[in-house]
């Protein structure tokens, strides 16, 4: 069982957590100006890197708070600091 370090609670079992996808997709600054292709990209396309990945995680069965983390998708190891709030 992999241990994941929640910034508030410390290391806990992975089953307490929920991945929230890449933390690098900002909401469009001017939504009215978006073309269909831009919307498709915002709604559907996410980075899918093989290597370091900046992601949202939720400690859903613990303190229920979100944090941003860096994880290497080749090894599934958490590699960077966990930061509360914004990525």
């Amino acid at each position: 069982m992999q241990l994941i370090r929640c910034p508030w609670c410390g290391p806990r079992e992975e089953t307490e957590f929920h991945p929230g996808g890449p933390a690098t997709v900002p909401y469009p600054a001017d939504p009215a100006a978006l073309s269909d292709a831009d919307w498709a990209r915002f709604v559907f396309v996410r980075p899918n890197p093989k290597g370091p990945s900046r992601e949202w995680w939720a400690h859903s069965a613990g303190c229920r708070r979100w944090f941003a983390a860096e994880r290497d998708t080749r090894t599934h190891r958490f590699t960077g600091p966990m930061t509360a709030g914004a990525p």
Partner: protein
Amino acid sequence: MTPTTTPQHFSGLGAHLPEHPEHLWRNPEPKRSYDVVIVGGGGHGLATAHYLARNHGITNVAVLEKGWLAGGNMARNTTLIRSNYLWDESAGIYEHALELWEGLEEDLGYPILFSQRGVLNLAHTEQDVRDSVCRVEANRLNGVDAEWLGPDEVAKVCPIVNVSSDIRYPVQGATFQPRAGIAKHDYVAWGFARRADQAGIDLLQHCEVTGFTTDGDRVTGLRTTRGDIACGTVALCAAGHTSVLLDQLGIAAPLQSHPLQALVSELLEPVHPTIVMSNAVHVYVSQAHKGELVMGAGIDAATGYGQRGSFSIIERQMAAAVELFPVFARAHLLRSWAGVVDVTPDASPIIGRTPYDNVVLNCGWGTGGFKATPGLGWCLAHTIAHGEPHPLVAPFGLDRFTTGALVDEHGAAAVAH
């Protein structure tokens, strides 16, 4: 120390090893240029190569594989073959594939152990029952064999399923597709590879594509670990690693690569005559020809290219399996493994054109592309030969995410595998 052992040293052991069997394909040196270069030597790449030669007479073709032939998801899947998907577009391509499976052994001249033992997709809730009956009707309208069975009839098809009402997720019934089945995945890959090789197509192993050279809206060549190769048309069949290639081409596609696990038990005598899938409790089971129970579950929630998944998924899957099949309680797990599957937002594949004129894309089959192997190969070969998507794959273009014409096979079609 230099090895001095000669075969005579072993003769005393009485081991008379048979002659090494004929190789099924050559291991050629790469040529400098091909009319068609297929990236990825899994089931889809090999089937596409076969049908390029067989249906279109196109044989100046190379299949580039970074590892050994068919060592990716083709070597790791649980071989479920069925066509009972909900939507017309899906029924079209999967039923085409199933019809090809039914004649594939003859076409390839190679045994593939295709066994049409039927699939039960269990329903556990009232909503499951409504969705399942709806899917049976949709299947029939599309000419796909499908029946709705009550719990007693489920027990007749598969006596070891627990259909009592006092379990956590009681079986309320199931859809049944009698023509569904399993095949021997390695033999399928080898059969396609052998035929493609016989037609003169080069299967290049340990040949990883590391980059592309482009000229305007054309890809002119591929950089590989075995040198540069010039190309006419490029077909990407890299499954879980497609995003890595598309990033190099600057093409944005809605793919996420997740670990998907499966496992087998020790060998048992025949106890399980069909295939049972349950989406609600996340397990599916068949019994392979040799006797091992083959079980799969869902993907890990997080993305990952590591070819290993979380133990908690296996734990949950085993709990579900033992509740549905009490006789499995004392079976031992022999081994488990994982592949990397490329999942799309609507759980349907992405096939067809790209922003590059001479690059065609085949990806996004996620947890369920083995069953499509011959059908996809047939249609992708046609797409390459005619420069136009085959009608059966036309609905699956990358542009559907912009037009909104998604083919949403989530849940409703019992979509896993």
